[in-house]
């Protein structure tokens, strides 16, 4: 039996309201990039496709970037405005994810909604001043959304405020294109340090502290690390300090430049 999406009907939503109504039934499922859903064996009632709602583009205003939920990862990877604002951290965060074809296929919304433990995407956006726009739930900080249980609202856009900050991203993989062993995104706005660490192996978490270069070990101590087939908790904790130091170096070098 091959891995594939299984559904009785495939519906192109004509409006967010229609998609929301359809999505209230537990047997229906919104399909984003389908990379994760297809790995399951569940027979869904209706597959709900948002791809005709104009959510596959990035809007840039003076205040923020508005990234549609159906925007492929490849588009944020190549987006000049996002990468200029983040000094290439967005590019760095997604370029290791499988391959070009994969990143043309999967979406920002699928990654953020999924809040996957392995997610590079959740990690980088947690370190930025990011918000999710939900159809019914309104606009809420991504750091809150990351902790919320899965619900049946619809993720419409990811909004990234152009807050003045420096950000850097690093990750470690045992092998190219594999899931990461650890991900780390660090940003500095004034003396406010935001550190997001993911693939611990649980999902990325954000810690915000006042920046003190001599107390980075305390930042790392505030995260929990676990063991799985890719690495032990001890190894991950060691890696976390390495990646945090590298990202801090990158940010502070940027400032010096």
């Amino acid at each position, binding site marked *: 039996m*091959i*891995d*594939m*999406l*299984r*559904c*009785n*009907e*495939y519906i*192109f939503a004509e409006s967010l309201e229609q998609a929301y109504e359809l999505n209230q039934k537990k047997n229906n499922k919104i*399909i984003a*990039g*389908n*990379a994760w859903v*297809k*790995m399951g064996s569940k027979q869904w009632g209706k*597959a709900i*496709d948002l*791809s005709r709602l104009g959510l596959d583009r990035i809007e840039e205003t003076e205040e923020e970037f508005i990234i549609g939920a159906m925007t492929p990862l*490849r588009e944020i990877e190549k987006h000049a405005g996002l990468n200029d604002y983040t000094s290439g951290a967005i590019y760095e965060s997604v*370029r*290791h994810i*499988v*391959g*070009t*074809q*994969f990143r*043309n*296929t*999967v979406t920002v919304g699928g990654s953020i909604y999924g809040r996957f433990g392995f997610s590079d995407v959740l990690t980088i956006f947690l370190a930025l001043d990011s918000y999710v726009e939900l159809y019914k739930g309104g606009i809420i900080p991504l750091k809150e959304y990351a902790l919320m249980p899965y619900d049946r609202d619809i993720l419409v856009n990811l909004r990234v405020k152009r807050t003045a900050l420096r950000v850097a991203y690093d990750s470690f993989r045992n092998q*190219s*294109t594999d899931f990461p062993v650890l991900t780390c995104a660090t940003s500095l706005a004034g003396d406010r340090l935001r550190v997001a660490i993911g693939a611990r192996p649980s999902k990325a978490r954000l810690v915000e502290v006042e920046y003190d270069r001599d107390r980075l070990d305390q930042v790392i101590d505030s995260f929990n690390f676990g063991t799985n087939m890719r690495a032990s908790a001890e190894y991950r904790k060691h890696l976390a300090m390495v990646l945090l130091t590298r990202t801090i170096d990158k940010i502070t070098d940027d400032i010096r430049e």
Partner: protein
Amino acid sequence: MEIKLWLNGKLIKDEVEPDTPMLEYLRSKGCYSVKRGCETSNCGLCTVWLEGKPILSCTMPLMRADGKHITTLEGLQDEAKEFGGFMADEGADQCGFCNIGFIMNVLAMPRELENPTDDEIKEYLAGNLCRCTGYMSQMRAIKRYIAFKQGAEQGGESNEG
């Protein structure tokens, strides 16, 4: 469900099951170049183009291609044959199983990247796994192919022998 799409430039109107995988559909239409490899969206073997961009046909729902253009290797015969010559010259073609997805992605690359560096080539093709070649021969073939194409554009000689 009804679906209408262009496969290698030819308009097709069809009736399909709503969950028909794109990969299996393309094979049912005679595009046997498209193959299923890893089952986990990782190997790149099933690469086709949707609206000119390389995607994974094992993953993309067929219905999402409604009203769009799909290109498989069967629609790129001349370019594939041309690049295949460089692969053969460099011994970059061993068991051959990964070739199809690899060639689809190589042919997509110059449409997106101009004069790619070695690192850019490696990054663009990271999603095409090969378990025979070690990638060195493929890299040589790509670089010779790109040089040949640039030479041809500038009125140079063709690749004979």
